[in-house]
């Protein structure tokens, strides 16, 4: 519009009408009208909702958060029992969501990269298997896959009294995966200290080696030294201190195994379902990213004498990452949001605990759903902000 109504000459100074026809004035005016209309619309919606709730005698506000919840949750990362508040139950649900989303993202990325690279493999069988994986998994609805994992797994495993025994004192049955729980004894802190020292030392070595390579061109086996520092050194400390760690083994008592740690089938099914489903999309992103790097780059890398591994690691992957990261971000966000399907298979995530049970016990649907939406929005924005930062970090730096 700015282009059409250009300058009208001296006449426009005179009247108000011509003032209003100035493009910049008009643009500002429309924007103001739009903002006012939007604000008014939301104000009306909010006051109308509040008035209706009052008229229908439905409780509103967030006073319920401090009231006693009175129900139990099967999996809680923080202390929780039914005498605690709705607010606490919210935290329990939130942490369960974050746990499954966090582990899901890591697992999906690992599987996705493996499958994506396999699709480009020169081995016919590997490449075909990867193609079948992608085409089957990404074309079946996630909810069905979750039901498949949950009920197929549940139905095929034995009851607690006929559990499969795993080497090392673990058990698998229909109630979950029971593993011995490590219980640190006095002195175990030293092992943690060794790990921290190992990590700090590795970073220092990495920086020094880089400088040395810049100055002299000589390389240093950073990876192996770091591994030794982070794994072998703490292990040495652990053995030296006389193994200050005991295990709490699960035992069959009454109905169930007691003691040890347990991974519930709901959690396992959700984690597997989410990771495997999202991995099929990530695989395609990885494949397209690698294929998006022009062949000439690889040939040039080989021409200057880099080995095949080096050309992949130093030339192809850094460029592929730039193509991969933006769509990868949306897959991470999808996974996080899809975790709300947990409610279908009984995993106590935020949607199940908070906008399921709490919503029902309090009946305050508007508040509860609003909070749930804000939480998912916040998580998604944080993931997205991190990925944007990472993307910038990986972006082409022109010298």
């Amino acid at each position, binding site marked *: *519009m700015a282009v059409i109504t250009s300058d009208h000459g001296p006449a426009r100074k005179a009247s108000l009408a011509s003032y209003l026809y100035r493009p910049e004035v*008009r643009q500002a005016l*429309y924007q103001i*009208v*739009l903002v006012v*209309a939007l604000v*008014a*619309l939301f104000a*009306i*919606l909010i006051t*109308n909702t509040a*008035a*209706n*709730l009052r*008229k*229908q*005698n*439905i*409780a509103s506000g967030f006073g319920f958060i401090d009231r006693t919840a*009175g*129900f*139990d*949750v*099967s999996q809680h990362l923080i202390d929780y029992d*039914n005498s605690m508040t709705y607010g606490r139950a919210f935290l329990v649900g939130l942490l369960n969501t974050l746990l499954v989303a966090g582990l899901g993202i890591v697992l999906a990325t690992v599987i996705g990269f493996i499958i994506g690279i396999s699709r480009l493999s020169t081995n016919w069988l590997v490449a075909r298997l990867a193609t079948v994986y992608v085409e089957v998994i990404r074309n079946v609805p996630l909810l069905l896959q979750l039901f498949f994992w949950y*009920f197929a797994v*549940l*139905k095929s495993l034995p*009851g607690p009294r006929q559990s499969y025994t795993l080497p090392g004192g673990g058990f698998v049955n*229909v*109630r979950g995966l029971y593993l011995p729980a490590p219980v640190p004894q006095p002195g175990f802190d030293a092992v943690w200290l060794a790990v921290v020292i190992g990590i700090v030392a590795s970073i220092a070595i990495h920086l020094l080696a880089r400088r040395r390579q810049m100055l002299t061109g000589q390389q240093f086996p950073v990876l192996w030294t770091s591994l030794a520092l982070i794994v072998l050194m703490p292990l040495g400390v652990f053995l030296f201190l006389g193994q200050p760690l005991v295990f709490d083994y699960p035992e069959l*008592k*009454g*109905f*169930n195994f*007691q003691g040890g740690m347990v991974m519930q*089938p*709901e959690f396992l099914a959700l984690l597997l379902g989410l990771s495997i489903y999202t991995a099929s999309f990530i695989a395609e992103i990885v494949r397209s990213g690698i294929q998006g790097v022009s062949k000439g780059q690889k040939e040039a890398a080989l021409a200057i004498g880099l080995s095949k591994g080096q050309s992949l690691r130093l030339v192809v992957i850094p460029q592929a990452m730039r193509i991969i990261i933006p769509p990868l971000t949306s897959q991470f966000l999808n996974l996080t949001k899809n975790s709300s399907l947990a*409610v*279908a*298979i*009984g995993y*106590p995530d935020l949607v*199940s605990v908070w906008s*399921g*049970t709490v*919503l*029902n*016990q*309090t*009946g*305050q*649907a508007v508040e509860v759903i609003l909070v749930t939406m804000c939480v998912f929005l916040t998580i998604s924005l944080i993931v997205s902000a991190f990925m944007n930062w990472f993307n910038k970090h990986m972006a082409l730096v022109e010298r």
Partner: protein
Amino acid sequence: MKPILKGILAGAAALIATAGIASAQTKTLDTVKSRGSLSCGVNVGLAGFSQPDDKGNWTGLDVDYCKAIAAAVLGDATKVKYVPTTAKERFTALQSGEIDVLIRNTTWTTARDSSLGLIFAGVNYYDGQGFMVKGSLGVKTAKELNGATVCVQTGTTTELNLADYFKANKMTYKPVVFEKLDETLQAYLAGRCDVYTTDQSGLYSVRVQQPKPEDHLVLPEIISKEPLGPSVRQGDDQWLTVVKWVHYALLNAEEAGITQANVAEMVNSTNPEIKRIVGKDGELGKGLGLPNDFVVSIVKAVGNYGELFERNVGSGSRLKIARGLNKLWNNGGLQYAPPLR
């Protein structure tokens, strides 16, 4: 540019107008009459209470209450639109006006009567929460359930009673919570849980649908009071009164011995009480905003309370639940209706 501006303003005005309409209170009885059908919120599927049969017709005790209300208000028990609701959706459906009445084996509690904007119109089934276990577990009483894993449906009083019961008896348990009955049941059957808990009527209803019902044992303990009944929105006394008196009409009909079979003859009865009930004497219906013979319409459609109980959940059904607390007051039960006069 101007038309666009006008468009924005018109759009905003339209939204304001619709928002205004949504807040206006309407009388449910008039709405139902002018719409010509009753919108009734029922369970998505619970044998004996509300379940579609193999021909897609809804049947059950709660469904018969929907039919009774439609018969009383519209004179036609078929004019019901059944809206299946989950435990989680049911109150929102009623609050928002999507349904006129909620008859979905819903427990009457203080919180629901006060902070949800609902009001209960009576108790059409006195229930209590129980436990079902697999017979192979060797458990005979709920006191032996320490450490058990319990499958339960979300959004119910069941979840809270369960927590209270185990706490009061100093026992521990692991809850596994699902949103839908089907998944809760599947998990129990697959052995994920030792125990399935819900209202006892629900346990019997689920048990009878299993290929081998005798493999499952309903434990004797009843751990809570679960008065189930129809509920309506607050602030519409006329509609509340209608729903309430449809329930009382069913009870009074049973007490007076009016059945689906004999209602045609009873209309000509000379007994003063029966004359009042069938609307030959007095103007009871008019005061409620209903036809004067509304009780006749109800009984013709679904029978009296005793008949619909036996047909849906009692001796005439597969559930074979004893009437127990749901007997009339003069037979030792709790069902007591104020007189129709």
